[in-house]
């Protein structure tokens, strides 16, 4: 080792460091974007697929509805609007459905887009359902067609698509299936399209060919997808020439990026961050009803043969009903969601405003009433104050939730505290998601070794899937409370075939009543969708639907197409969002402390710490040295 060389290298590095640090702060953020207006969105979900059949997350759905058209789209009020098809009609028996495809429509690569493409796409679903696997990709899309009872599909001419169904239905206009270009996709087998681990899997690498308003042109898996405007798009073009959807592992970083203008739109912010963002300049927030809910599910088979519940009481409606009086849903909304949600009751969230009904006799939080009902139902207290079941065994319930839903731990603390007042022990503990799914299985696949647990469901545009979780047919699948009720099953079949909305509403109303009375779940709350966006670069933000939705990440790409250039015309401001956004909870105050304050405080704190420890060290070292040198 030659020392002088090392010295030189060191000096060189030091000089480079100096140069870099001198250059950096002086530069402006806008490196070189030209005049192109780019919409940058941030989300906590990962951009992991461009093949729509493998969609699972909200982001996946957003990506494929930007790339492709649905046969029938969703309008600003979630009404059916022209998509790949220009118009549609059904026969009198509602079993033959005819879709007229738009003439002269082109794919983004210039090829003509015709009814044959739509037929090929729907036939792919029929083939997949008939195949050995029985599904395609992640299995999320084909049920939109099978639930509608699709039997066959034909394209008698390039502008006409005809679909026949097994029973009368109106669900085909809600089918969330993207129409794909046959000339690209037909080169691949069903296996290569549907199975990501198959040889020659069709990744659908960019540039993606579609008829949607944008086409994906760049993709770093798990990081971002960049879209460019589809110049062949048949509909209204948006002001954004490009759209970038980017993944963030930490919501703090995402919020900071929105504040600094590095992002225009974010989804997946925390409730407190949402409240604070509402006070930031040039930032608007949108609180949408989520099409879903968080729930507490009981093992309603209790400890019957083959089921591993710890007590027979779980199978007793009176017991579950009484516990409902010991859950303060409003408090959970305040504490867990910082107020950004609605107290839960039935299995159809208020998002479905045409279908949701409020229970006639809602349970009110009242521990005395809960105790009274438990006494009345025959669950007496033992000498130690603990309630015992009908077999004389003290009741201690195991409460769990998947580790993917960390905020459930807060609900767990509350439930443990409230049930303690009833003399019922609760042992709360989180479970790894995959293990929980295994644990939940009932006979014959599993032992249902659990008492009650918390998770959430997200629904479709139609309430069908949300209703299905309590049917006998869903046992072994999504029926995770093992609840069965003949009347409920009967009503489910009837509502599926009801083509008259009023008739169907009647069935669905009764189903919600049964659900609420028999209490296989206690729905804890309907959590809100919390989004925030900048108003200084883009205008024209419109919620979908206007009274209870959000501008983006709704149903279809309509929110993108109505955007305007904010610098061209002054933005009218966030028209609808204010109406749905409740005032931040009064208790806070703390959240108003600006970031600059905290910066200063942190800097001061760090400096103080360094000084204190430094002084201490110097003092003591000095003494050490003196003494030891004596």
């Amino acid at each position, binding site marked *: 080792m030659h*020392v002088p060389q090392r010295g030189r290298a060191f000096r060189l*590095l030091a000089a480079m460091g100096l140069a870099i640090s001198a250059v950096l702060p002086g530069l402006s953020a806008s490196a070189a974007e030209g005049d192109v207006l780019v919409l940058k969105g941030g989300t906590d979900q990962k951009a992991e697929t461009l093949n729509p059949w493998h969609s699972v997350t909200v982001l996946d759905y957003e990506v494929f509805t930007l790339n492709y058209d649905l046969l029938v789209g969703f309008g600003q009020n979630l009404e059916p609007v022209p998509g790949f098809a220009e118009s549609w009609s059904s026969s009198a028996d509602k079993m033959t459905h005819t879709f007229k495809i738009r003439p002269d429509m082109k794919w983004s690569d210039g090829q003509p887009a015709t009814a044959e493409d739509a037929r090929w796409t729907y036939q792919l679903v029929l083939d997949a359902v008939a195949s050995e696997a029985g599904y395609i990709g992640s299995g999320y899309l084909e049920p*939109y067609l099978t639930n509608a009872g699709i039997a066959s599909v034909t394209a008698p001419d390039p502008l006409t698509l005809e679909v026949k169904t097994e029973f009368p239905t109106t669900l085909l206009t809600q089918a969330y299936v993207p129409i794909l270009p046959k000339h690209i996709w037909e080169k691949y087998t069903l296996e290569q399209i549907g199975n990501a681990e198959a040889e020659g899997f069709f990744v659908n690498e960019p540039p993606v060919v579609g008829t949607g308003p944008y086409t994906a042109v760049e993709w770093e898996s*798990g990081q*971002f997808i960049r879209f460019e405007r589809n110049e062949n798009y048949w509909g209204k073009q948006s002001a954004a020439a490009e759209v970038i959807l980017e993944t963030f592992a930490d919501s703090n970083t995402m919020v900071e990026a929105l504040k600094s203008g*590095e992002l225009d739109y974010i989804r997946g912010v925390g409730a407190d961050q949402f409240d604070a963002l509402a006070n930031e300049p040039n930032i608007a927030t949108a609180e949408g009803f989520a099409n879903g809910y968080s729930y507490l599910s009981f093992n309603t088979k209790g400890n019957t043969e083959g089921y591993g519940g710890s007590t027979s009481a779980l199978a007793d409606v009176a017991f579950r009903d009484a516990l409902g009086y010991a859950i303060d849903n409003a408090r959970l909304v305040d504490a867990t969601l910082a107020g950004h949600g609605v107290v839960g009751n039935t299995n159809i969230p208020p998002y479905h405003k045409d279908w949701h009904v409020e229970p006639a006799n809602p349970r009110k939080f009242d521990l005395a009433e809960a105790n009274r009902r438990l006494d009345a139902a025959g669950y007496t207290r033992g000498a130690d104050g603990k309630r015992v079941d009908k077999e004389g065994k003290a009741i201690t319930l195991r409460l769990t939730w998947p*580790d993917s839903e960390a905020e459930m731990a807060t609900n767990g603390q509350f439930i443990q505290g409230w049930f303690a007042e009833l003399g019922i022990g609760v042992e709360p503990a989180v479970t*790894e998601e995959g*293990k929980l799914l295994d644990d939940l299985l009932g006979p014959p696949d599993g032992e249902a070794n659990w008492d009650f647990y918390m998770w959430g469901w997200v629904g479709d545009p139609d309430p069908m899937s949300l209703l299905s979780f309590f049917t006998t047919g869903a046992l072994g699948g999504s029926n995770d409370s093992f609840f069965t009720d003949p009347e409920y099953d009967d009503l489910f079949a009837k509502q599926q075939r009801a083509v008259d909305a009023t008739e169907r509403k009647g069935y669905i109303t009764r189903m919600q009543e049964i659900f609420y009375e028999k209490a296989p779940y206690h729905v804890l709350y309907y959590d809100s969708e919390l989004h925030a966006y900048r108003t200084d670069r883009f205008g024209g933000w419109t919620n979908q639907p206007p009274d209870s939705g959000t501008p983006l990440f709704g149903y279809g790409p309509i929110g993108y197409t109505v955007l305007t250039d904010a610098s061209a015309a002054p933005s009218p401001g966030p028209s609808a969002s204010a109406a749905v956004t409740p005032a931040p909870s009064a208790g806070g105050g703390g959240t108003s402390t600006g970031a600059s304050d905290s910066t200063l405080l942190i800097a001061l704190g760090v400096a103080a710490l360094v000084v204190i420890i430094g002084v201490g*060290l110097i003092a003591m070292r000095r003494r050490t040295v003196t003494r030891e040198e004596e």
Partner: protein
Amino acid sequence: MSGHYVARRFATAAFTIVLIVLINFVLFRAMPGSPERVLARNPNVTPELLAQTRARWGFDKPLFPDQFVRYVAATAQLDLGYTFRGRPVADVLAQRIWPTVLLFGLGEAIAIVVGLALGAYSGWRRGGPIDLVGNGVSLLLYSTPYFLLGMALLLIFATGLGWFPTFGMSTTGATFANPVDWLIDVLRHLALPLTTVSLGLIGQYAIVMRSSIIETLSEDYITTARAMGLRDGRVLRRHALPNAMLPTVTLVAINLGYVVAGAITVEVVFNWPGLGTLTVDALASRDYGVLQGVFLLLSVAVVLANLAADLVYGLFDPRVRA
């Protein structure tokens, strides 16, 4: 450096890699959760379909030897299986490794130069003002988890002062007129995470180098050299430094394994698209295939780095060379 020494180092490294591959196999089988869970929370999937899938996924072959042989063969061909969402793990790793190499390669380089220089000087001038301040700061940096340091820097310099961008490795989707603009963009994104990594490592390396120098200075030959009237600076550069460097080099290599923990948290704080962010994402989505791949990749990388350090050590240490 004798052939025997080299052979033994290679044998040790090979043994360790075999052990890593073995452990990886065992861990992979012990992971909770079953592969059909992507279907299980799909509200529209029928029970029949679920049951069918469960049966299809069930391991039909015995764990040993069939599955083990298949696993070893696949691993040898760098086939690391698939992510939860069906992407080849090897592809994902290949995409994420370079940002981490960039960030931590530079971080290590800066930390080694600054940390070792600071440590050497502190040890040489033990009790002097540089030592007191330097050692105190080093200890303090060593005691601070990387992510705390990163969060503080982010809040002060990106959010508070707005000098640097808050996330990523470059401005997504930006087109650059020339490579210099691109380089500047990357450097601006790199500044804060790199500072965090370097500061965290400087503390450790300075502490080690300092004690190493102090130890070396107590050796007889140094005392002799000084007694012979050699100038202090010359003693330091010619005798003390080279010898004190040796244990430190080993430590830097060994430390790579620990650095990973810091890498993971720093990358998350700055949304740096490397292996650390990938690990936390995989943990959050319980993508164990990815975690396995990260473990395998990092382990082998650290073993190879150690092997390299051992060989370098062998080149310079007279005792080994003999």
